[in-house]
């Protein structure tokens, strides 16, 4: 079997990066973002990038790092708050933004990954999101046509992988990582631990290895928390 494991993010991205490419990226806020791979994209110096990602990181975290270095031309996202540099570039017109409703964004990735170039959805009917899109009536209700996102490259963060690229995620860090992984021509995954085949439960694989072309172990991780909320006492 072809070797999927690379020594680090730079090596894993070798030959895959070029200016003006479309990258699908997993993560929700700072949860489950492929931080090693994003750092390596930044260090490569490629520019004019379009990112399809639910969020744009925050200032100097995640995609926020590539905004700071002006490597991002366009964002396809559902929510971009908590990011001052994003706001500055967006308001000055340096950065193009395509807002896509969160579920539509996830489905545009999933659909493309499943070979479906477009689908009709009720989400956004009668809103700005519907402008310029085909409207079709099914069963007396209006739906709008949304197009799949066929990305040149998918960047994904997961918990564990075996050496053949079977992947499992942890808790809510799964989020957009699965649909993003499937919609890339090439998918590069960073994980916290790489194990031998057989060590992951074959019945509990979240992303089968067929979707994963390159793999790195990015540990150790110092995971960031956007809003640290706690309780002080036991709940009854």
């Amino acid at each position, binding site marked *: 079997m072809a070797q999927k494991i690379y020594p680090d993010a730079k090596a894993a991205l070798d030959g895959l990066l070029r200016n003006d490419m479309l990258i699908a990226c997993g993560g*929700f*806020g*700072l*949860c*489950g973002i492929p931080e090693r791979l994003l750092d390596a994209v930044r260090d490569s110096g490629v520019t004019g990038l379009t990112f399809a990602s*639910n969020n744009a990181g925050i200032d100097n975290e995640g995609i926020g790092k590539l905004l700071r270095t002006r490597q991002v031309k366009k964002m396809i*996202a*559902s*929510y*971009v*708050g908590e990011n001052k540099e994003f*706001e500055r570039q*967006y*308001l000055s017109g340096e950065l193009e*933004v395509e*807002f896509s*409703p*969160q*579920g*539509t*964004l*996830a*489905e545009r*990735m*999933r659909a493309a990954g499943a070979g479906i170039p477009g689908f009709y*959805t*009720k*989400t*956004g*009917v*009668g*809103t*700005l*999101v519907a402008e310029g899109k085909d409207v079709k009536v099914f069963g007396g209700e209006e739906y709008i046509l949304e197009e799949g996102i066929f990305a040149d490259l998918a960047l994904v963060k997961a*918990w564990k992988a075996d050496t053949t690229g079977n992947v499992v*995620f*942890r*808790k*809510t*860090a*799964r*989020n*957009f*990582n*699965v*649909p993003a992984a499937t919609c890339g021509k090439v998918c590069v995954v960073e994980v916290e631990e790489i194990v031998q085949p057989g060590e992951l439960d074959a019945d509990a694989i*979240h992303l089968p290895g067929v979707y994963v072309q390159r793999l790195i172990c990015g540990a150790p991780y110092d*995971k*960031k*928390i*956007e*809003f*640290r*909320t*706690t*309780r*002080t006492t*036991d*709940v009854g």
Partner: protein
Amino acid sequence: MTKHDGLTKGWSRDQMAARAAQELQDGFYVNLGIGIPTLVANHVPAGMTVTLQSENGMLGIGPFPTEDAIDPDLINAGKQTISQLPHSAYFDSATSFAMIRGGKIDLTVLGGMEVSEAADIANWMVPGKMIKGMGGAMDLVAGVKKIIVVMEHCAKDGTPKFVPACTLPLTGRNVVDMLITDLAVFKRPDHAAPFQLVELAPGVTAEELAARTTAHYLS
């Protein structure tokens, strides 16, 4: 509480959330928006099982964790750290919105900037201001079985927010089933019917409500 025009009656934010919680039923799967809607979780009646969905990929949201149990891989859609419950389940974002769009979620409670008499809702952008995006709001109002909007009846300057037609860009068209404000509750039985006033907050008269509402409703 609405405090313009000398009117200091009406429900507090927490009371509005408690009113919304009266719409919960045992076994419901529910998605709560950020702000007042989040408070609804504090008012689930004793003995009732309600499973909360977080659109970033979880069913069965638990309470905020204790300091030693904080997990960066476990957050809600507001990006706050949370905990899991014995019956919790995790899934990816496409699956999460498949259950939302597919009509599997029984109820969502959302905040609003404006609601129109035709049951349109605007709650994601104000022209001229920084647009942060709609997040999952458009998917929720399009797909969830029952949509409750909880909002102040008027803006801080006294401008009515329950209006004949929304002035702000819409989040959804003809989607709201119930509107709970600090002054009153409005409902409609189906998507062809107008809103009906069903409840006034204690101390609020029908005349006071009408004076602060530009939308048409059945009283």
